[in-house]
């Protein structure tokens, strides 16, 4: 079997307003008990890619804490594991802090792994992709580079700002940005399989063209010189590329038809455990159509919401269409609609908070 190393690419311009003020997109809490990065890491693990490097762009503290030694994602702790690849040198330099420079800085990781192929995927595009199938197709095609895309018919409202591919047969002829002016596009899922040798060449090449060129730029620049194959992925894919998309995609999961596409017993989503007790529903609890993580204590009304670990909802409080992150407390009688509450905040004095289609945001640790 070919040897494969995985790279989770956290170099992107995606941010979620307040939620990413102090943490990277990768460790933003998602669906009550996950971090955004858990999905791509679980895909790697489930695809038997057991050596994974995480290309960290910024704010690494919460990510270090979340990932630990990588045991939770079922990577073999001796023959594989998760390596955190951080580019200290350019951490504070926007133009130079990109994936190519991170790879240059951490090139030893790629060299030592001695893999045949490298599979590269972002964290903010949520899929249940089996990379083994992509690698298989890549190997059979004889291509040096394979790009994964999905044909979508709502490109005017999702994946705006992502790249799309122009194809000739199965070959990529052009890579352009989706400006949202058409519905049907072959959207790049920013997931690539590249022969290790070719990746090393690309890195060297990119440095020669422009110091500001990242991997995307380089691939776009090279697609008429190199043979880049396109691989169509037809499974679940959502792009969480903004605060609004974070809220919208989260809420979408409350629909069982959506969540059952992702949570399958054959494709576990791994995360680290926090040893929180079961959630306690008290006498006045009225919970409907919601995702609830463990450790919560609920005595109020909750509808169409996502509650993370150790959240407290007081008596007669009303929580509708909200996302409440770990450890936050909603006081008795408070009324919240369309609100995202970051970790360890307390809703005490301001007892009515109502957002609109763009949800209100309460900062981590704030008392409101």
């Amino acid at each position, binding site marked *: 079997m070919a040897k494969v190393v995985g790279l989770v690419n956290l170099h992107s311009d995606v941010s979620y307003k307040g939620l990413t003020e102090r943490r990277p997109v990768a460790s933003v809490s998602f*669906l*009550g*008990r996950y971090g955004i990065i858990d999905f791509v890491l679980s895909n790697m693990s489930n695809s038997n890619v057991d050596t994974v490097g995480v290309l960290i762009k910024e704010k690494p503290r919460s990510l270090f804490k979340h990932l630990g030694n990588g045991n*939770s994602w079922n990577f073999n702790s001796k023959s594989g594991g998760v390596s955190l690849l951080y580019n200290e040198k350019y951490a504070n330099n926007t133009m130079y802090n990109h994936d190519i420079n991170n790879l240059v800085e951490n090139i030893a990781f790629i060299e030592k792994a001695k893999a045949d192929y490298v599979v590269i995927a972002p964290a903010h595009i949520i899929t249940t992709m089996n990379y083994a199938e992509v690698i298989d197709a890549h190997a059979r095609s004889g291509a040096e580079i394979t790009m994964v895309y999905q044909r979508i018919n709502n490109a005017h409202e999702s994946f705006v700002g992502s790249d799309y591919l122009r194809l000739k047969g199965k070959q990529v002829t052009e890579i352009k940005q989706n400006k949202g002016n058409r519905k049907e596009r072959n959207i790049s899922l920013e997931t690539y399989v590249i022969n290790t040798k070719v990746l090393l060449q690309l890195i060297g090449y990119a440095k020669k063209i422009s110091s500001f060129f990242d991997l995307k730029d380089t691939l776009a620049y090279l697609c008429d010189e190199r043979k880049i194959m396109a691989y169509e992925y037809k499974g679940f894919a959502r792009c969480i590329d903004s605060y609004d998309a974070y809220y919208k995609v989260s809420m979408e999961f409350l629909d*069982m038809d959506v*969540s059952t596409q992702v*949570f399958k017993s054959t494709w*576990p*989503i*791994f*995360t680290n*455990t926090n*040893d929180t*007790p*079961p*959630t*306690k*529903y*008290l*006498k*006045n*609890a*009225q*919970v*409907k*159509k*919601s*995702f*609830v*993580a*463990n*450790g919560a*204590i609920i005595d109020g009304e909750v509808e169409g919401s*996502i509650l993370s670990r150790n959240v407290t909802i007081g008596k007669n409080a009303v929580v509708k269409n909200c996302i409440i992150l770990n450890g936050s407390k909603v006081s008795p009688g408070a009324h919240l609609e369309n609100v995202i509450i970051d970790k360890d905040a307390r809703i005490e004095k301001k007892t009515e908070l109502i957002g609109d289609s763009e949800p209100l945001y309460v900062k981590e640790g704030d008392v409101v």
Partner: protein
Amino acid sequence: MSKEIVAMILAGGRGTRLEALTAKVAKPAVYFGGKYRIIDFPLSNCANSGIDIVGVLTQYESVLLGTYVGAGSKWGLDGNKSLAAILPARERGEVGATWYAGTADAIYQNIGFLDQHSPEYVLILSGDHIYKMDYADMLAAHKAKGADLTVAVLNVSMKEASRFGIMNTNKDGTIYEFEEKPEKPKSTLASMGIYIFTYKELRKYLIEDAKDENSKHDFGMNIIPMMLNDGKKLYAYEFAGYWKDVGTVESLWQANMDLLDDKELDLYNIKRDWKIYTEDTLSKPQIIGEEATVKNSLVTQGCIVNGDVKGSVLFNNVYIGEGAKVVDSVLMPGVLVEEGAEIYKSIVDEGVVIKAKKVVNKEAKEVELVSDNAK
């Protein structure tokens, strides 16, 4: 390197009165509280008390328990200098194959393991009790008194005292007599089966006890009386808090119901940060459906609730169908309650399917146990 204290958890018991629940697993591995197994409590207490060498002595149906405890990583006991060691009854070089004949014999057969760590003190625990306790406080008391043996006791009511081993003590806390299930108790201090021995003394008495063919090799019946006879220093250490030995189906049900009452066992660390660690099940968060109601209940990750749940404890991956009713019941992992079924005052064992519209224990007088392992 020698350790100050090593813990030994007696986890070999069958727990016959738990009926079908222990048909295939040892009592310490029985599920409790929505996501735990009973042995999580002593193991977490050890981890939280800073005890990092723990022997787990197994006998009855030891495979699942052994796999579950593993190297102790669930409780953070898998560091370079920490260890959870499964010590099953086994074939040994000098005597051949033997079972553990009693609590004291089980420890005696593992003197080699203890010698290897040469601890100053040994903490003996039971693998089937539910409680939160800081053993470091008990050790401090043991040291302060210069005791040879400290026994943790719980002050029970006079009515209950006849069900326990009772420690009769002097005013200074020294034990002068031990009575097993006395008809007319002189005191209400019940032994919790938690002992701290000074290892030197324990070792001596275990060897002496092993020579006695008439001994039942039991701490309560043999070791403690022998030490009292010899005028050793035995102290009672009074524990205040929730403690339960769940011996029967009824008491296991009751202990689960106790969790719905805030005053009992504090799983939410409201008073003190003392987590109970357990296995993570990789389940998605619980999903409460559009037509569901959940009141006065514990529900854990992986559950999908579409019906009515009241006064109940739901373990991971339980599914409650639409229109189903679950009242005052404990549903163990993977239980599937189909549409319109009703369950009252029951313990439903792992993986049981309750068919659509079926009604279980509507009378709700006694606790009903529903299990695929029932005879």
